[in-house]
């Protein structure tokens, strides 16, 4: 019922308008993003791929409100992030965004359930609700039986699933993943991709993933290829669920 039909176009939930970003170290001035405009849709797993240093991580940081663009505008879930101050931006991220990083960044002292519960407690949820959500989230990533274990007792793939559960439990509208599979072997990488894909489909979440991992390309609903701060290609591919093949189109 709440799954988007393959034939209706899902709504745009994240927009970048003429976004530019540059860094300078000493006399060297380096432009990372060149006047970039982009629409990302809810309910899809969008992959930004490209070589190291192409600016994809910076793009993710700007789209997720972790960094501000030098120029341009970012509209997420109808809100212009460039107009928000630091505190309001934190509040926006608390309510609407989830993050999964390459390093799992789990607190060594906490077990899986506590890792997931921790951000929920800052949402102001009653403890009982936070616990229920955390358990449901861990079960969704298949870690129900292992939720009492600490990071040192979990494999790399399991740690990344805890990190996903931590992001997912907040029920965010936007889920950002930076190289989520780079530190994992093939089997675990596959599990992570499937989970991210499923989250987009079942929760209607906008999942934006940045990776140079070629294994991910076949599983994304849409693949944006980046190089030198520009988007080179924008390919919509749904090889399993839709009969129409990917459309190649040049970027704006």
């Amino acid at each position: 019922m709440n799954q988007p039909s393959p034939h209706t176009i899902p709504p745009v939930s994240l927009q970048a308008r003429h976004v530019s970003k540059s860094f300078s170290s000493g006399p060297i001035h380096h432009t990372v993003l060149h006047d970039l405009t982009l629409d990302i849709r809810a309910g899809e797993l969008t992959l930004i791929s490209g070589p190291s240093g192409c600016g994809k991580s910076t793009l993710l940081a700007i789209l997720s409100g972790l960094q501000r663009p030098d120029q341009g505008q970012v509209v997420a879930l109808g809100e212009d992030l460039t107009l928000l101050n630091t505190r309001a931006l934190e509040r926006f991220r608390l309510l609407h965004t989830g993050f999964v990083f390459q390093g799992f960044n789990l607190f060594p002292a906490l077990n899986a359930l506590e890792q997931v519960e921790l951000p929920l407690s800052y949402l102001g949820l009653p403890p009982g609700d936070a616990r229920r959500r955390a358990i449901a989230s861990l079960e969704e990533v298949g870690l129900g039986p292992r939720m009492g274990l600490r990071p040192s007792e979990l494999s790399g793939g399991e740690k990344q699933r805890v990190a996903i559960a931590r992001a997912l439990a907040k029920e965010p509208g936007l889920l950002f993943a930076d190289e989520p599979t780079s530190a994992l072997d093939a089997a675990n990488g596959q599990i992570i991709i499937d989970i991210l894909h499923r989250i987009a489909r079942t929760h209607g979440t906008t999942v934006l993933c940045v990776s140079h991992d070629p294994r991910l390309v076949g599983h994304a609903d849409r693949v944006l290829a980046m190089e030198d701060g520009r988007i080179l290609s924008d390919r919509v591919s749904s090889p399993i669920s839709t009969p129409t093949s990917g459309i190649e189109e040049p970027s704006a």
Partner: protein
Amino acid sequence: MVALARKTLIYEWRRFLPAILAVGFAGLLQLLQAALVLGIFGSASVYITGSSADLWAGYPGTQSVNLGRSIDNGVEMRLRMDPAVTAVEPFHWVDADWRGPNDTGGVSVFVSGINTRADGMLFAHALPPSLRQRLNEPDAVIVDRADLDSLGVSVGDSAVINGHRVRVVGVSNGLRALGGVNVVASLTTAAELDTDPTNANRMTYFVARLRHPANAREVAERLRGNHAFGSYDVWTARDFARRSQLYWIFDTGAGAGVLFLAGIVFLVGAVITSQTLVAAVIGSVREYATLNALGVGVGALRKVVMEQAFWVGALGLVGSTVMGAIALAFARSRSVPVALGPGVALVCIMLSMALAIVSGLAAMRSLRRADPATLLR
């Protein structure tokens, strides 16, 4: 609420141990030096604390018990007239010069002339009745066991005080004086040793026992207003003891020394503690940055750091309290002069907690490195 601060402290206790030890030892040092200073300078008021009197009447403005000047004998009558007073006793203080039988040169001694009766108030806690009894012999004196060597005598020996022959009839314990040697004698003997002719019909102090010691402050207030017998002042034993101790602590510069050392201990403790807490924050900086990316505010992260600082302080204080109690018990068993009241102990404990809090504030600054954007590079 997930108790991140406490769980991390328990799980990574090795990381926090140096900070806990720093707070613990800083607290221990503060406690011990306070106890030592109070113990050593507490002996300045041994005449008061070793006696059972509730009120002391002496020359107005006397800053320390050893600096007393004589007051009129009529003050005794004035004290006795008050219905709250049940007993009054004179205390004759003589600054004198001691020459022992052996070659010790001149030694400056403080002669305390006291009532030798078994129910006498002066040195009631320091001298047992049998010892007081022996002072009734002519020219008998008692010296402290710790001073036998410096006086060059043993029990039964004779010596000369202010040109007058005396005989050591016993030794006391815990009557060490500051800046000299205590010699206890009867009032009669002391009067013979006092060579100052202006002290005739005058006495250094009069001490009084009250029917209700709890009212000492009011009675002292009532008695000091009267000038019928020349100028004198009346203090409660507690006030006078305190005043004598404070005089010695500050007159000798020991107070400034204690404060200086306390400052050094605080500084060293704070450096170690804050460095340890900074290292702990930096060790978890990626996790903190992740929480911040997920929208947990910097304020909430700071609270975690401050909570850790608080627990480090609390654990350190438990350690220093236990170690301090053991050290003080040991010192007492070796007759090292130590004294520590609850007020001073509380100040030391609060100082150590302040150390932990200041360190936490310093460590909080390193949370700036928890910038989630850095996780994406």
